[in-house]
């Protein structure tokens, strides 16, 4: 990224302090996760106590209908919101990065807000919005309200990731394509899209992760018994924990790790820079 000379590595005790700090940070990051995985195999009703190895909790998870329904809901919502936000977010990124138009500055600011606004505030916004909208349109809450809310914050994240990628690609490539007899659409299809693909994939995976992660906003706009997995698990935790939650958590953990892995792999293969 930068061509300036890097900072040289420190020596002596100072270096050892820095090293120790780094290892402690990683321990802090990963120890809880490792412990959680271990306890999910523990044969003890008490969540934090080891009681011999078992797969019971995973078995229970596999047979638990509400959890499976919630998981299905989560996946449906994540798929729908990701698809829409990838299309809208990519278009927004292209417009902002490659064109000038009236209202561009305001749009730019509006697009940043959902990223910095706290979850709780966004949840309140969506709750009141749908409450008011329902007075006029009379729809019921559930899949649609959750998906619409998830799209509202995902568009911004997708567009930021895609814009970063677009900013790093030479606008001349599109001109070269046009010079080589490509129509505007062909230039987009065969040159622009392939070069920004790592950004689009990265943005999409980020949107997917955010949708699968969200508790607060979903909890505020859900209705009609529509639960996503995080909301359902959150409810379970508040009611009192059982090792079943450990198992569910580990499954969610594995899912998000796989997603990150895929995202990194996608960028590596495409030769892109990490997002």
């Amino acid at each position, binding site marked *: 990224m930068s061509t300036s000379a*890097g900072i*040289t*590595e420190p020596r002596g005790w100072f270096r050892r*302090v820095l090293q120790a700090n780094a290892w402690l940070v990683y321990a802090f990051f990963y120890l809880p996760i490792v412990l959680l995985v271990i306890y999910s195999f523990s044969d003890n009703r008490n969540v934090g106590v080891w009681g011999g190895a078992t797969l019971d909790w995973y078995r229970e998870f596999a047979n638990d209908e509400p959890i499976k329904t919630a998981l299905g809901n989560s996946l449906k919502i994540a798929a729908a919101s990701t698809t829409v936000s990838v299309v809208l977010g990519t278009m*927004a990124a292209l417009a902002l990065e490659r064109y000038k138009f009236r209202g561009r500055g305001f*749009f730019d600011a509006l697009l940043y807000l959902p990223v910095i606004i706290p979850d709780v505030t966004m949840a309140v916004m969506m709750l*009141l919005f749908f409450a008011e909208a329902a007075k006029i349109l009379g729809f019921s809450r559930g899949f649609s309200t959750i998906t619409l809310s998830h799209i509202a914050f995902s568009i911004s994240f997708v567009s930021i990731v895609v814009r970063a990628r677009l900013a790093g690609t030479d606008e001349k490539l599109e001109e070269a394509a046009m010079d080589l007899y490509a129509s505007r659409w062909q230039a987009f299809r065969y040159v622009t899209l392939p070069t920004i693909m790592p950004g689009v994939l990265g943005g999409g995976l980020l949107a997917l992760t955010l949708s699968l992660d969200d508790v607060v906003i979903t909890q505020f706009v859900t209705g009609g018994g529509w639960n996503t997995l995080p909301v359902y*698990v959150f409810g379970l935790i508040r009611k009192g*924990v059982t090792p079943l939650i450990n198992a569910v958590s580990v499954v969610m953990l594995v899912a998000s790790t796989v997603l990150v892995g895929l995202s990194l792999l996608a960028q590596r293969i495409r030769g892109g820079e990490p997002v």
Partner: protein
Amino acid sequence: MTALSRRAPAEDGIATPEFEAAHERQKRWRGFLMALPAYAYLLLFFAVPLGIVVVYSFGTRTRFGTTELSGWNLESYEKLGRDLVQQVLFRSIWLALLTTVICLVIAYPFAYYMATRSARVRNLMLVFVMIPFWTNFLVRNYAWYVILGTDGPFSRVAEFLGFGPTRLLFTQSAVVMGLVYGFLPFMILPLYAAIERIDGRLLEASRDLGATGYQSFRRVLLPLSMPGVIAGSILVFIPSLGAYVTPDILGGAKTTLLGSYIVTQFLSARDFPFGAALSTVLMALMLAATIVYFRRGGRTL
């Protein structure tokens, strides 16, 4: 070519200012159309809801828990002066500040160390910071719940070390710990971005000019990495202030923070106007922080 043919219309294939202007307009229009779906979506599903929250904050809660929007008043904002609310506000700000400072103290040496390593090691270190950042937030909080619980591993270790049975769960310390755990990557990433782009020769130059290690940190490294410090602090402070999941799981009923307090107004107290007013305050704080950040010329989001 004569002056006459230069004025010929675009149909002849000869460029005219009118043709050029039309082409420019068409290009702008194309950009606008491309932005339009997301633009319209965010106006409807973000800007309008934002406005509704502000409108609600001037409404009145009826005795039945519904909201009366006619007759604007400042009642909800007046409630901000109540002792209980002040307590929640100050506690939230205090804990969010504490979280920010702890993150800064841990993340600065970490980011500095990362910046001194080779590109390969750096990227690897970065990936391992990103993974927890991407893993499910609820699950990460829950992991601490398990660890800090009554019979959990933490109290076992404490007992083994002779501290007696210790339970950290449902205390403010647990909440701060959870917040630090959740938002530390938000501090590391901008700090690293800021320190990485500093020219190492500047530090060597300061040492060459007789500065001690501390002086070259204080006079060179720190000022140069300030945009990262500010960006990281805002990225940690704001979500800490609005945190809901962490205080709910790790703080229990005792440690109400602004985020959870807002949720309570909607899900149990059903005082929508007051909840909306609190949300508006939170948003105002966030906007103020963001403006401070951009004023100081930072650009490392």
